């Protein structure tokens, strides 16, 4: 009964997403273009490096990693910051705040529908395509299970970060700059645009202590590493879990403190 309250929002999100058929086509084309750019860019990088293996990754490794990172991004990006920012500017946030449900949960579950749709319509097809095209370069075994668990936590961490940035919109009442900044930082430091293996030593060490690499790097390395040792799995998932809890706590506290001093537009 309790869960139904949330799942109904997921359902609505799926129906809503399916209303806009054309946007899927546009998105698939956009992704293809991006992947073509990525392909040629890295091809050039490997050609100029003169060796087959750069920083411990072959061209195929890198490409699989980046394609899957893009697919992951497509379904994980919830545009929460946009949504919160727009709702603040238009004043619609008042209506959402007046639902008998925490705003944080309301927003998450409202988005979860798009999430499910994206998973089946973009991530899964990409995943299967990559697996088929590379003839089993993605190992299929227990690592799939780790991957799923890892992605669930990645989603949570990503949402918390978005929510924190969205909360900042309460103060600035503008979205564009903040959102772009967030996106660049998250995508870069999480290893979604360039695999973390390519980072310079110092940066790699810094990134290890930040939450971002738990979003893309963690699930992807668990997936692509055929037989990860128990220790690797535990540290990766453990780190993710810690970040999950920490970011959740921060985002909740920050929102609560900020909400007290909002001045919703149109008063």
């Amino acid at each position, binding site marked *: *009964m309790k869960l*139904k*309250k949330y799942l109904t*929002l997921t359902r609505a999100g799926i129906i*809503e997403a399916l209303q806009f058929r054309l946007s899927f086509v546009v998105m698939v084309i956009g992704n293809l273009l991006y992947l073509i750019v990525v392909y040629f860019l890295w091809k050039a990088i490997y050609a100029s490096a003169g060796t087959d293996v750069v920083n411990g990754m072959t061209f195929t490794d890198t490409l699989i990693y980046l394609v899957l990172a893009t697919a992951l991004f497509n379904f994980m990006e919830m545009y929460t910051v946009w949504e919160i920012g727009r709702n603040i500017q238009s004043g619609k946030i008042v*209506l959402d705040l*007046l639902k*008998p*449900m925490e705003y944080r949960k309301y927003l998450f579950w409202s988005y979860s529908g798009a999430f499910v749709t994206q998973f089946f319509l973009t991530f899964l097809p990409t995943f299967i395509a990559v697996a088929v095209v590379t003839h089993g370069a993605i190992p299929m075994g227990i690592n799939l299970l780790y991957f799923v668990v890892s992605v669930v936590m990645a989603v949570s961490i990503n949402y918390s970060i978005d929510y924190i940035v969205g909360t900042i919109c309460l103060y600035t009442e503008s979205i564009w700059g903040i959102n772009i900044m967030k996106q660049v930082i998250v995508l870069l430091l999480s290893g979604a645009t360039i695999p973390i293996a390519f980072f310079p030593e110092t940066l790699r060490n810094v990134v290890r202590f930040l939450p971002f690499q738990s979003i893309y790097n963690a699930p992807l390395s668990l997936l692509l590493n055929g037989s990860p040792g128990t220790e690797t799995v535990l540290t990766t998932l453990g780190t993710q879990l810690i970040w999950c809890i920490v970011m959740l706590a921060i985002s909740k506290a920050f929102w609560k403190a900020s909400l007290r001093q909002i001045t919703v537009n149109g*008063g």
Partner: protein
Amino acid sequence: MSAIIEIKNVSKEFKVLNRREGLKGSLKDLFSRDYKIVKAVDNISMDIQQGEIVGYLGPNGAGKSTTIKMMTGVLEPTSGEILVSGNVPYQNRTKNAQEIGVVFGQRSQLWWALPLVESFKILKDIYQIPDEKYEIILKLYRSLVDIDPLLHKPVRQMSLGQRTLSDILAAFLHDPKIVFLDEPTIGLDVAMKSRIRTLIHALNKERNTTVILTTHDMGDVDALCRRIVIIDKGKMLYDNDIEHLKSFFGSYRTLKLRIDGDLKEKAKLIQKELPEFSVSVDEEWISILVDEDKAKVIDVLGKLQHSYNIRDMQLEEISTEEVIKKIYEEGVK
């Protein structure tokens, strides 16, 4: 019986940055700590009983929305106490939300891309309305308005009137104790306004729902409210029956005239001719506030018709703004 809403000496202050002019000023503003305190609501008290329809009036920026946001729990009062159905709204916003329904005339809480019935189903789950109750309320809706054609229409394809109607139905869906309607008839034509008024009236009767209505339309107030609260610049000016207010203002009408020639000059001449009424002028119209106890509008018009070439005329009921102006000038005893 105790009141469903109790408001005791409530004030709300906003901190507003003192903005400076120009590019230089804007740059300075980035580092400014120069705030001024704006009192949006200043020491308001009232009790509202279950089942009442209260008209909450005031000009733009008077503090109406701020008061409503405090009652719904979105804003926390700077000082004073608010109890809504026994809850302190801003402390138990989620719990309070279960007891109230809200319609903001300018915005919709419905799911834009989905047919209305889907929005209803979502709200049913969110508010955890049991099936039987949901059926009962839908039956009631069917008896009040012709909703079947609306139910399967996506909200984004609805006209403003249909959307407002749907939003009102959505706000009453979980059988809340209180419904806040913030300018529900804004931008609607006369026929739709009247349908909406009938609907609100019927829902209030059937469910004994308390309705707090803010509006600029005296027609809404006339049709729906027994009790009126007027607020201006954050202060409460009036809290009493509509009859009381009517006995005070009901006999006033504004006669607006468009006359050939220089309006300002003509206005002066008319003022001389009608010393007992106040005459004002703007770019297009000469307005005469006629006290019908002293002279009938039709007689005034007849009198003026002899000496002026009247091209166009309008008759207006006294507006909220004028009511407030008069309260300031004369006070209500």
